[in-house]
């Protein structure tokens, strides 16, 4: 077994979390990892650091990281770190890690996080426990990563006792987000200079595109159309826009090409968890309702009072969605005008 570039005796008592950005905020998974990292660090009396790579507007991100528990932030700024490329990020992270020698390095199991963690582990000659479902500390500062499969039979607990840093990736949503800290603690920002060479970077960022058709799984309001709305998704789009939500659909309108497949809600489409789901002209087949059952409130509009959708709905309107939705749009617009001119 190859030895890692630095061993347990040289490693510092620090847990480092890779901070991934999404526009002007940190990704939720990074905050989740900081929350968990805080808990682990407190158990053994270590420090918690965040690793932030980038080029511009780093300050608000640091504030966020401190709020959820980081003691210090290691920052590397470089024009080549402006957008994520696996070569530049791996090289920069490697240099920072070799400079600070943390005992533990955690990364979100996002597409970029996975890419980075794998390369970094190889470069550092250390182990990586990927896709952990839980993390805990054992005596002697050993990180135990829980990795699970289906059923209880394939649970594995993985340690990296000989190598440093001990690395793990964790999927988004595994750890809860702790409320921000109020007490004033030490907040140190350390700028670490890194050397990057443009020739190293073999990835060229041609264009950054935010996924077309926003992710309806994240939307607080989803307006779903079924066969009964006869393809009038333009109406539903107006309603969704007024409510700050997204449009979804049942299977038949998707089949007939009235709306993209990405917006299909249900067992073979997406399962969403909005605060409010407004279901228009859908009978409520079980394979569809599976997709909205986690909504806080379901409002159904259907002409048929016997439609099974009313069994799933918290509120039901018996009537034609094609008449009710335009009326609702008008009412919403009027109330906004009233508020605006108020």
């Amino acid at each position: 077994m190859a030895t890692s570039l630095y061993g347990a005796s040289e490693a510092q008592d620090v847990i480092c979390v890779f901070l991934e950005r999404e526009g002007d905020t940190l990704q939720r998974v990074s905050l989740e990892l900081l929350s968990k990292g805080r808990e682990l660090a407190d158990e053994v009396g270590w420090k918690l650091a965040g690793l932030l790579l980038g080029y511009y507007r780093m300050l608000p991100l640091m504030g966020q990281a401190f709020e959820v528990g980081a003691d210090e932030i290691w920052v590397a700024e470089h024009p080549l770190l402006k957008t994520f490329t696996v070569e530049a990020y791996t090289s920069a992270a490697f240099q920072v890690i070799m400079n600070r020698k943390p005992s533990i390095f955690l990364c979100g199991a996002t597409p970029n996080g996975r890419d980075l963690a794998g390369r970094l582990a190889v470069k550092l000659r250390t182990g990586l426990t990927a896709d952990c479902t839980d993390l805990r500390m054992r005596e002697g500062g050993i990180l135990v990563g829980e990795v699970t499969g289906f059923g209880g039979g394939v649970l594995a607990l993985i340690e990296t006792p000989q190598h440093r840093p001990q690395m793990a990736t964790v999927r988004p949503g595994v750890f809860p987000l702790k409320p921000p800290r109020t007490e004033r603690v030490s907040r140190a920002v350390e700028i670490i200079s890194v050397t990057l060479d443009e020739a190293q970077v073999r990835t060229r960022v041609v264009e950054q595109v935010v996924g077309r058709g926003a992710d309806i799984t994240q939307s607080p309001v989803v307006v779903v159309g079924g066969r009964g709305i006869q393809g009038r998704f333009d109406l539903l789009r107006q309603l969704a826009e007024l409510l700050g939500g997204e449009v979804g659909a049942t299977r038949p309108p998707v089949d007939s090409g009235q709306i993209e497949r990405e917006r299909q809600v249900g067992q073979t489409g997406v399962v969403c968890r909005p605060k409010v789901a407004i279901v228009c002209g859908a009978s409520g087949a079980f394979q569809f309702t599976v997709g909205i059952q986690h909504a806080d409130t379901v409002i159904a509009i259907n002409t048929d009072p016997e439609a099974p959708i009313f069994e799933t709905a918290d509120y039901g309107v018996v009537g034609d969605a094609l008449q009710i939705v335009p009326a609702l749009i008008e009412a919403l617009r009027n109330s906004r005008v009233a508020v605006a001119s108020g």
Partner: protein
Amino acid sequence: MTQVEHLTVDDVRWDTLFERTRGAVALCYQCGVCTALCPWGQVREGKPLSVRSLLRRAQLGVPDDHEDIWLCTACAQCESLCPRGVPVAEVFQSLRGMAWEERRVPKGLPSVLWSIHWNNNPWSQPPSHRSRWAKGLEVPRFDPSEHEVLYYVGCTAAYDRRAQKVARALVKLFQAAGVRFGTLGDEEPCCGDAAKSLGYTPYFEEIVQNAAQVFAQNGVSRLVATSPHCFDTFRNYAPRYQADFEAEHYTQFLDRCLSEGRLRFSREVPLRVTFHDPCFLGRRNDEYEAPRRILDAIPGLERVEMARSRQDALCCGGGGGRMWMETSAGERFANLRVQDALATGAQVLVTACPFCIACFEESVKAVGAPNLRVMDVAELAAMAIE
């Protein structure tokens, strides 16, 4: 210049597959009857599912990351005429199992297995709601000293609102026949059909062993299942894991109630119906007559056959885990099956499987046949009792 596909032969892969299919994959001698019979050929013009070539690649140990391995509905159409008796669906399940190990799995399928793990059903439904279908009915908890049989509802009939009606009809029929029965309520275990069909065999084994254990603890020696899928799992797979109980499909049980004179149909049901054989009842378990005898015992009911029936019945498309995968609009077997039913002039397309019902009801709308009703044998039978 001709493009030649370069294939890499992997002996370890072949050995693994040989072992997992208990040698069955070696039997294939490449006649191609399977490809010719496979229903995918009827919905995919010029691009059938080449079962034969997938089997050949498997025999050579060629890694298959082809999405085609996820198409098989386990309908057994090919198996019924395979001259070498290759259990094709099981080979597909083994290929899927390898895909799981290599993490090449279509989106959405891991959550089906996670749902069984967390919720004890593949439909992401809360375990505490499992017995809600029986609200307002008198369905006692199974007690071996009192009850002759366990009614095994199954996940789909327990949660799918459409299929719940079938479970409720069955309770009515059991009561009319004076059957002493009970259920396991919220503790009823999942049969694991979804995990088996999706090829995650180690977990399936765990589920079915757990089910057998729950049945043993509750003193169950005989059960009647709503779905042919659960019935097939309990009848054909559970015995491999030292399970000690007998399983029947409800059509078999009701058929016996009729012949023993426990159940009588007195009300006329003047409908023209055609029966669709669910693959897991017919081809997989050779039960073609029990559901037909039940239908024929209903006064006033006229039963007609579709052009392809019994051994030749066309699959609805919902088996083999396909209930949890999307099938594009032009490729649904159920659309063709609805056309088959329409051609008979029947008013009702009747079947005996909750998956078939879900697929057909969707296709009746898609094909635009609002006058064709989709019903379950149990629902028609319940109409015939007082």
